[in-house]
């Protein structure tokens, strides 16, 4: 029963939503056969219901966070002081945002107003932290590329050449380096070659990958709808 009920709900809702794409729409006045009106109602309101459910998922996530860190603190597991920091930060921002401290008064007051403490926390803490972690990618890309891009084979050589052309082509240096070329040799310009690589082989490869992924998604979706997916805990 524990697995059957979720599986039935998943299958029923999934099939219903797929069918809404193929059932006719009511006319401008909202009139039409009862089935058509029913499916239009489902299509219009399902998104709203999902948003309501998503709120519960947020609450569940917060509760999971509280539970795991509280138990870590109480059991004095390794690194428990960091859990204290996590919980204090979590609760502080929650209170600041929920009660809209510092900003326009009232529950309707805008939490993103410049005077709101929420925006202060966002701009002083969240923005720099996120930007820092994202910026680390620049260094990690450099070290990963330095470690991985070796001329081991013909394919690797072609890849390296393409990397050179595209990386230079995305900067003013690429344009400047090709400025000496006459118009008849425009196709040899770094920026031209870069655009060609992006528009032709890249798009061809991506479209092929997309088609493969779409087919894979369709197959897995069908298995989920029929209750034959391992993610539901069924080791079929």
């Amino acid at each position: 029963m524990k697995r059957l009920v979720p599986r039935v709900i998943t299958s029923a809702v999934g099939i219903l939503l797929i069918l809404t794409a193929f059932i006719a729409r009511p006319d401008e006045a909202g009139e039409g056969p009862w089935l058509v009106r029913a499916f239009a109602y489902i299509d219009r309101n399902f998104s709203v219901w999902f948003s309501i459910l998503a709120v519960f998922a947020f609450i569940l996530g917060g509760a999971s966070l509280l539970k795991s860190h509280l138990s870590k603190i109480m059991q004095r597991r390794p690194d428990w002081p960091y859990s204290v920091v996590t919980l204090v930060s979590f609760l502080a921002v929650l209170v600041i945002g929920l009660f809209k401290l510092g900003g326009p008064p009232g529950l309707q007051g805008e939490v993103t107003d410049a005077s709101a403490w929420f925006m202060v926390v966002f701009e002083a803490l969240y923005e720099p932290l996120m930007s820092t972690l994202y910026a680390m990618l620049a260094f990690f890309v450099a070290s990963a590329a330095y470690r991985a891009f070796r001329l081991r084979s013909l394919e690797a050589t072609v890849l390296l050449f393409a990397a050179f052309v595209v990386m230079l082509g995305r900067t003013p240096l690429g344009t400047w380096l090709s400025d000496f070329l006459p118009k008849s040799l425009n196709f040899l310009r770094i920026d031209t070659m870069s655009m060609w690589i992006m528009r032709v082989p890249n798009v061809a490869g991506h479209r092929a990958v997309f088609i493969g992924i779409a087919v894979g998604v369709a197959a897995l979706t069908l298995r989920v709808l029929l209750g034959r997916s391992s993610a539901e805990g069924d080791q079929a």
Partner: protein
Amino acid sequence: MSLWLNAESWNLLIVILAMMAALIWGVRRAMAGHRPRVRRIAGVEAMEEAVGRATELGRPVLYVAGTQDLDNIQTVASLGILGSVGTMTARHGCELIMPTDRSLVLSAAREVLRESYTAVGRPDAYSPDIATYISDDQFGFAARVDGIISRKKPAACFLQGAFYAESLLLAEAGAQAGAVQVAGSATSHQLPFLIAACDHVLIGEEFFAAEAYLSEDPVKLGSLQGQDLIKNAVVVTLIGTAMLVSLAGALDWPWLTSFKDGVLRLLRP
């Protein structure tokens, strides 16, 4: 019938029904005993070796099921692979660490792992703390997982699922910790980073096929065969339509032009 059916999407309905028919054909064929032969996927085979290596070294295995929620099909596929990885770690007696960034994924992962450990007769080795919830925030999650990698020094890292900017943060941390890394994702713009930093990568459809490959379940293997049939049909349609459009433009025969227009109308979304 047109009262009920959306006149604009009849062609899409035909395509979907044809795809379903192909998938069901593959599954029924496999269940009747004609199991398809699946080509070797190096990344999938490397998983078992990596878990074995981790057991010998006495270091844990790290599994990250992507950074999206359960409504993302890649997460669903990843949980399927997690089941097989859980079976491997249970059998080898190796520690498994699975940080998650979504509460629903945490719940599903715990169910999958409990099933896996029980299936190989090691329910005692299972603990709910194998899978832990970190944070919904993308970089908060990545920072914590990087911390886990640098402290616990896993011998194997499996990054399977939908990743975004944090993919390289996770993969490079694993590479610097000396872990054998097997990644799999259908997020195409992250694949270059995973390929640069990981030892094996399951690209796109290989990632979805990995679950079938590992489980050897006839239903899943059969659906792989159905997928191949669909892809072959897509390739034939693409080439055929391109040739048809080119010929119709070059020859300018009225009947050929009408035929071309009809085919394009059928294929238009």
